[in-house]
């Protein structure tokens, strides 16, 4: 398999702070790669370096076979980018904004009008192209941003937080759009997000990114499987109950620990024992408000790393 993006020991420092720490990333051709991590993990910094918009402190990278440091224009000609909090000229219509983009990409006039029509309908803005961007909802702007990135017929699409600050319905639409773009156009997609479950659904591969380092990487289904013989169950029993004293350590319960939310506990049990735990809780006459098996190791890893980050901060 050949790779659209390769970074080796990529590092970016701002003064004493290391935003991206010796990052080794490989994104295969035609895949949807999810860069997951909390805000400030270094996702946007990585993306800006890949586009040649920010200078790495050390390390090397290759995007579509080019070095963004040496040939930023060559990279930008082939890579479509949807920035975090994308903006448009609000005094212009969606179509006028795209015309400017077409000019910046040196698309020739008569064909570019057709291309604009195509990308507008592709993202579902076929009817709204002639409205002022000022009237656009956030989701519409986001879709216009994707159209803007598609205009140059990119081979790689980089989407920075495409689902941030969008209502659930909009999120669903955007993710569906991204999936179909990857399938229909065969374009490689790198997308960043801090919301695991949204991104998990459409990504071929994810990397969990914390403090500038990748802590877990792989296809979501592989990460989901896990190798340990235990599962973690989230239990809500009201804030006055000390669950750890009630659930005496047994063979099938290996740990009971508090979470940061009062009254919510995490119980580590033997694989397949969630139902047994539920029965035990009822037998103890506890007023159980929630009981939820945390879906996957990825989920757990994600949560734990994030909590660690918060604790460190």
């Amino acid at each position, binding site marked *: 398999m050949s790779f659209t993006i390769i970074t080796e020991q990529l590092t970016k420092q701002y003064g004493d702070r290391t935003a991206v720490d010796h990052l080794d990333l490989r994104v295969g051709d035609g895949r949807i790669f999810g860069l997951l991590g909390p805000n400030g993990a270094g996702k946007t910094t990585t993306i800006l370096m890949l586009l040649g*918009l920010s200078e790495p402190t050390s390390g090397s990278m290759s995007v579509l076979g080019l070095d963004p440091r040496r040939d930023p224009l060559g990279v930008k000609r082939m890579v479509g980018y949807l920035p975090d909090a994308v903006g448009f000229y*609000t005094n212009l219509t969606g179509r006028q904004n795209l015309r400017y983009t077409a000019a*910046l990409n040196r698309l020739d006039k008569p064909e570019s009008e057709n291309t604009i029509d195509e990308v507008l309908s592709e993202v579902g803005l076929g009817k709204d192209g002639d409205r002022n961007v000022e009237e656009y909802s956030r989701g519409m702007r986001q879709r216009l941003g994707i159209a803007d990135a598609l205009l140059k017929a990119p081979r790689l699409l980089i989407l920075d937080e495409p689902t941030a600050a969008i209502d659930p319905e909009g999120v669903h639409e955007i993710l569906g759009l991204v999936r179909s773009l990857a399938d229909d156009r065969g374009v490689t997609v790198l997308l960043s997000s801090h919301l695991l479950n949204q991104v998990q659904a459409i990504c071929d591969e994810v990397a969990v990114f914390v403090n500038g380092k990748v802590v877990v990487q792989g296809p979501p289904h592989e990460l989901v499987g896990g190798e340990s013989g235990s599962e973690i169950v989230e239990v809500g029993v009201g804030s006055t109950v000390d669950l750890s004293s009630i659930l005496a350590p047994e063979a099938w319960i290996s740990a009971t620990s508090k979470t940061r939310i009062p009254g919510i506990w995490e119980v580590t049990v033997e694989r397949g024992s969630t139902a047994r735990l539920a029965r035990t809780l009822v037998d103890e006459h506890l007023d159980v408000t929630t009981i939820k098996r945390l879906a996957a190791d990825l989920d757990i890893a994600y949560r734990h790393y994030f909590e660690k980050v918060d604790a460190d901060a």
Partner: protein
Amino acid sequence: MLDTIPSHEQQVMRRRGGWRIVARKELGDYLTSARFGILIAMLGVVAAGAVYAASSGIRSVAPQAQEVPALFLKLFTITSTPMPFPFVVFVAFFAPLLGIMFGFDAIGSERSQGTLARVLSHPIHRDEVIIGKFVAGLSVIALMLGSLVLLVSGIGIFRVGVVPSFDEVIRLALWTATAVAYSGTWLAFALLMGILVKKTATAALATSSVWLLLTVFGQFLFGGMSRFFANPSDPGSALKAEVMISRFSPLTLFQDASTVLLDPTQRAVGLVTTSSVDRAILSKLSIGQSMSVVWAEVVALIAMIGIAFALSFIYFMRQEVRA
């Protein structure tokens, strides 16, 4: 498909000139903006007032003033009640504001709108964005000042009935170009401030403060500073030093250039000593001679644009794209 891919040579050619795309877009925005409409209306009214007053002044002196050289240009340099100042002073005062208005938010608005990162993700060099913005701003300013001069000329011809000679038309054109360069220094400075100071409101305030300081308090400032350089035993040296220091202000440069360009009898700028005019033959200067008198002033204005622009360049290239 293959034959539509441009050759490498074409690609290189196309890669340049991205600033033109930016400039074209900016120009379109400016010309349709409310800002432009308000400015042109305001300037038009004031300029018409200025020329009305000037033409009244000329009318009263015209009958006995057959010998006045370049009578038409007097439209721009003299005034009478009720207007407090002639057109030249009006432009000296207003041109910097034009520059500031089209410069201070050029980069800041892109940043706050979130368009900067998006635009820069397309195949365009970062410097082409500021070059395009500067060119667009300067074009609008040239358009405004040019049409104002034409408006004043038109009203003048109609009211006074004096038709400009070829010589006067050239002088007027040169003066307009100088006024555009003068406004350009402030445009470049405002652009620089807009890059250095991230908040557009702060950038506007900072730039306007510098302008106010130089325009209103310039005389005191230069006078005060000249004392440091003056030789106490030579009473004239303080004055000489003041003149030298004041030339760091675009306002002085523009005023000096205006005086000479719009009046063929003016033969020097700055300090005129008795020795320099002693037994001088009173005659009109040709355009070439006037130009050679103010050459240094015009070059200094352009150099100021160059310096401010170079600094904008350096800082903008180093800045992070992120808002």
